[in-house]
């Protein structure tokens, strides 16, 4: 396959996460020869979105510690020349740990379930803890054992540092979690009968989920796009937006006093809110208006710069109601955050408001994994070479200058390059200087109804759950409806995210059990209003903090891209991509607008001609781009019209109709990555 790649590139990028993909696209756009490879068989790394079955395979892969194939060339000694040394990259992916799966949907026996293996053992969680656990060779996990029999060997070995600190917490959570789990098992025991209640509307069985698995696009990382965030700006500026379609987050909810409430954040929300009194409406609007340009009114907050945002809010004659909304749902910061940062977060939120809708957020249809792929596509259009299931085994360093001269790929081929960009996961342990990294706790649930049903089923909600106990972390939830093309009709895909203090399941179980019912089969009447969890996945993911270049002991022309962080937005990744780009090509513009397809001159052969035929965009590819022209217009019109809608410009709104017409067309299939060898 990748046996005859060209031997020379300007930039070699390993990993197809967001940051790497943006760098690859930006470099390719300005004429750098880019080789973009990924060890995995799919794009986007930890930013990927999977179909249900794809997710099951991913889980299997995680169990094996991300080690792909053993038939790698290990003998590269002969590729090295005088005065060179090899730096071997890590082959283990340790970014995902504590993987646990629970299935609550009934498993109808008549259905064929070939792929259900992973959850066959459920609700006993499937252990797939990455390399450590694979070594520990203990497939059990706390939740599986009845109370009392708690912590068993094996666990201690898991991520020692984290686990020790959090030893008590998981113990507690375990009690909360296990009744449900054991109940789940019981029912599973009498599986075939499954209490078919006559009143029940048709239940979604596990087999059904598997059968409809292709309708799911399950994100590994749960993020949204701030309408005025760096990513949206970049998508528009670079014209990459033509490859993607978005949906507005339709509402923002918060959990307060045991129930979910809609957060009034826009003017229309405040107007329509039933929970706020008239005076509260005024106070909230007044405060929000102040936050929008708080820098102009330093007298309002200067006395509080050294104190917490929470203290500041206390002095603003705001009712508890509003303080809660502001802190948890709008600023989305912990109470102890300094006033300045709280105001900045609030302002950031508010500035994104109204650009595209009454909430500040966009979500890409078909899942977040689309975004890195869009940039890959752009890279390919401008001549980038793509190769999946292909990796770089080691770097060739020049002993004298300490620079990376070339890389040796998994086929043993030496490819020279002047810059090498890699995903953080490939950095060998001994080259990391940073302290122990932090983790994100992630939960993915498939549920049968919305957390807060409304007239329309198709709500895309962001839900903030403040810490249930003091000291715990706030949990961020996004609930995706089927029109986002991320789950099958009749279900909702729920993503939970919080900073980890223990295993993902332990961190998130309290919130899940408050908001959902985890009973399999038919639910009691008492729980009827809460959504039932049909299937759940928990895992921890490494929380990538922005690295200073000094965090790694690597040559200056080797650039590390950390994976996703735990924040809601994507600014860090985009900012880093731009930084790295400028280090690679200091004098070029970052992602200038891509020309319209009709303005590109095609010559006899593609710009990069006689390559290996791998990942090389043929003319057909470009023709396909030309076909996309309409999408471009839609996007542009959409942007413009929505911008203007805010200012009430009639002219802008006219084009809005057009945009809507276009948007009403059946949405195009997800853009397929340019090449898959």
């Amino acid at each position, binding site marked *: 396959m990748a046996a005859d790649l060209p031997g020379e590139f300007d930039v070699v990028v390993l990993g197809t996460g967001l940051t790497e993909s943006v760098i690859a696209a930006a470099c390719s756009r*300005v*004429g*750098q*020869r880019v080789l973009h490879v990924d060890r995995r068989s799919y794009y986007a790394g930890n930013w990927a979105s999977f179909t249900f079955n794809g997710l099951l395979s991913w889980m299997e892969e995680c169990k094996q510690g991300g080690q792909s194939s053993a038939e790698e060339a290990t003998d590269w000694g002969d590729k090295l020349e005088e005065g060179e040394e090899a730096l071997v990259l890590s082959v283990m992916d340790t970014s995902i740990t504590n993987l646990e799966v629970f299935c609550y949907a009934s498993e109808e026996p008549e259905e064929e379930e070939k792929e259900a293996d992973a959850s066959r053992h459920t609700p006993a969680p499937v252990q797939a803890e990455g390399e450590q656990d694979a070594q520990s060779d203990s497939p059990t996990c706390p939740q599986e054992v009845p109370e009392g029999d708690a912590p068993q060997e094996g666990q201690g070995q898991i991520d020692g540092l984290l686990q020790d600190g959090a030893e008590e917490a998981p113990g507690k959570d375990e009690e909360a979690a296990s009744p449900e789990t054991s109940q789940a098992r019981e029912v599973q025991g009498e599986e075939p009968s499954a209490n078919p209640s006559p009143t029940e509307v048709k239940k979604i069985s596990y087999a059904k989920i598997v059968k409809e698995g292709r309708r799911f696009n399950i994100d590994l990382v749960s993020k949204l796009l701030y309408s005025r965030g760096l990513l949206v700006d970049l998508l528009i500026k670079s014209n990459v937006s033509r490859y993607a379609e978005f949906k507005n987050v339709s509402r923002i909810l918060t959990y307060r006093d045991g129930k979910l409430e809609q957060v009034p954040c826009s*003017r*229309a929300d*405040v*107007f*329509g809110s039933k929970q706020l009194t*008239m*005076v509260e*409406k*005024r*106070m909230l*609007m*007044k405060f929000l208006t102040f936050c929008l340009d708080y820098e102009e009114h330093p007298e309002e907050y200067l006395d509080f710069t050294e104190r917490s945002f929470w203290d500041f809010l206390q002095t603003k004659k705001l009712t508890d109601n509003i303080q809660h909304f502001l802190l948890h749902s709008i600023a989305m910061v912990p109470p102890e955050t300094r006033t300045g940062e709280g105001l900045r977060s609030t302002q950031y939120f508010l500035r994104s408001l109204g650009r595209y809708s*009454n909430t500040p957020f966009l979500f890409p249809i078909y899942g977040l994994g689309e975004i890195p792929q869009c940039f890959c596509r752009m890279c390919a*259009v*401008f*001549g980038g070479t793509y190769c999946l299931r292909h990796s770089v085994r080691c770097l060739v360093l020049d002993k004298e200058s300490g620079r990376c001269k070339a890389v040796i790929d998994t086929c043993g081929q030496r490819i020279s390059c002047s810059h090498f960009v890699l995903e953080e996961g490939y950095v060998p342990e001994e080259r990391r200087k940073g302290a122990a990294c932090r983790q994100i706790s992630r939960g993915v649930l498939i549920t049968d109804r919305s957390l807060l049903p409304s007239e329309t089923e198709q709500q895309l909600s962001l839900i903030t759950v403040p810490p249930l106990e003091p000291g715990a972390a706030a949990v961020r939830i996004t609930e995706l409806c089927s029109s986002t093309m991320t789950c099958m009709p009749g279900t909702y895909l729920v993503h939970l995210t919080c900073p980890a203090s223990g295993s993902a399941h332990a961190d998130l179980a309290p919130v899940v059990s408050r908001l959902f019912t985890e009973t399999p089969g038919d639910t009691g009447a008492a729980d009827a209003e809460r959504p039932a969890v049909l299937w759940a996945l928990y895992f921890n993911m490494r929380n990538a903090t922005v690295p200073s270049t000094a965090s790694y002991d690597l040559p200056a022309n080797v650039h590390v891209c950390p994976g996703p962080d735990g924040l809601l937005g994507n600014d860090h990744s985009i900012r880093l991509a731009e930084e790295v780009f400028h280090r690679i090509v200091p004098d070029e513009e970052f992602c200038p607008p891509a*020309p319209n397809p009709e*303005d*590109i*001159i095609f*010559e006899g052969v593609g*710009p*990069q001609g006689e390559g290996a035929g791998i990942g090389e965009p043929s003319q057909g590819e470009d023709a396909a781009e030309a076909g996309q022209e309409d999408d471009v217009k839609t996007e542009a019109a959409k942007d413009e*019209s929505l911008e203007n809608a805010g200012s*009430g410009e*009639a002219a802008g*709104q*006219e084009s*809005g*109709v*057009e945009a*809507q*017409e276009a948007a009403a067309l059946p949405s195009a299939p997800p853009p397929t990555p340019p090449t898959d060898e």
Partner: protein
Amino acid sequence: MHGRVKLKSTAQQEEEKRKEKEKKLKIYLTTRDACFNKRKEGVLDEEALQLSQQLLASNPDFATLWNYRREILLYLETVRSEDEVQRLYEEELNFLETCLKMNPKSYGSWHHRGWVSSRLPRPDWARELGLCDRYLYHDDRNFHCWDYRRLVVKMSGVPIEQELQFTDRLIGSNFSNYSSWHYRSTLLPLLAPGSAESSSPQRECSSPTSSPQMHSHRVCEERLLKEYELVQNAFFTDPNDQSAWFYYRWLLGRAEREEMISCVYVSREGERVVVAFSRPVNALSVGFLLVVDGQPLQVDWRSAHSCVRHSPVWICELPPGTISDTSNEHNLTVTWTEKRTHRDCALYSGRAESWCRDSATDLELFRSELSVEKSSVLQSELQSCTQLLELEPQNKWCLLTIILLMRALDPLAYEKETLAHFQILKEVDSMRSSYYSDLCSKFMIENTILKMEYAEVRVFSLCDKSLSTLCHLDQLLLVTHINLSSNQLLRLPPQFAMLQCLEVLQADNNIIEDLEGLRHLPRLEEVSLRNNRLSRLSDLRPLTTCPKLTRLDLRGNPIAQATSIRSELADMLPSATDLLL
């Protein structure tokens, strides 16, 4: 650089665009000419439809072509079967949608759509309503679409409640929208009409023949309370958005007075009848009938001032001797035939004058101008607004609304607060300070009229109140003494001549430059205009029409400095023996 994508240069692109344009233009012109030729020849066929469609698709505002299409369609209607006509018109609707996409505010397209919809044998109104929804969703101020929607609603009988919910939706997504609020104001009275009895504060009137009927385009109270809440949500959320405040003003109500004769005044000495109407009328074009002692009289009506064609006050001279004998009693009746209303007035023996009228206090004239609602409702509205004002002490809309509410509740009791609020208004909204001054003047005059009537006197005194304008002068018909000193009046407007009983005028310390209103005031004897800005002799010319003028004080005016002014004045106003210069 290597590997860079090659792009067409801008010159290349522009050349291509230019050529493209040229080609298009040529096709367009040829098609247009072909189309016109066909029309000239009176051809009404499918091909003409085809041609005009091509043109309209690129330029939907070509009115002639729409007309041509209608001619063709009308003809085809006569030669085709109903099903074929249905299909034809359905295609027309589809075509129109593409035109509207091209220009959502095309007059021609919307008009043609209305025409087609009304001719469609089996119209699909649901589809049309859906189309309106869609267009208004994208531009909630597209008035073409609003018009078309009203047509659709009317033709298809959409329930009002459903339309009301539609405005709920639009207002919910953006309440800065006059169109939606206005639509509500037309729907609500249809949906929940308030009965005239319950909503208009009627009083028994002194004159049973003409009870003051309030016209009520009003809404029942339960519904109103909901509306108040809705609109308060809007102005508490954004007190600077005026659409909600305007709707609120509408909700608070503006009753229209019934058209009637509000006053008949008769003077024996001048043998003159003065009639005041509830609104300005043109007596020369509407029919009045004057009956004295059972005898209809042919008289010439004139307005109080010759330059005012529409006037609330009309005057006529009776034939000499009709009522001049003081020992006789006379009964007069003025009938406004058109409105089937009349007013009687008896002039008893020995009396020099007589009148019959509805007083402003009886009618709650100035209050009802704002509201016909119950005062308990208004009181709670006032509380809400006061609450908002505490949060937003600088908000002009809130201040103004509070003033209006206070006036509706009790103009005299709230006078002091009203004046204070006006002061703030002028400061926070200095661009409109003159408007506020005029409005304040109007309210002050109303209050003074009320006070005068409660006191049952014919003296009107409003000094040192920064009056900038005069109004409600028809209400001062019976006033004999008026004092307007120390204000900011610039002129005595023509309407001032409605003060037909005026004997003494004091208007010192103003900035008056114009006395046009001091014309034909039969009883005016004394005029004091010290310290004003009268500078030319011609400014005083109107006074020559006031036969009884004896005392004129012009001290402190520029004109007083002029040489030989005294003799000139003596020539001009021979009756004015007491000249102070």
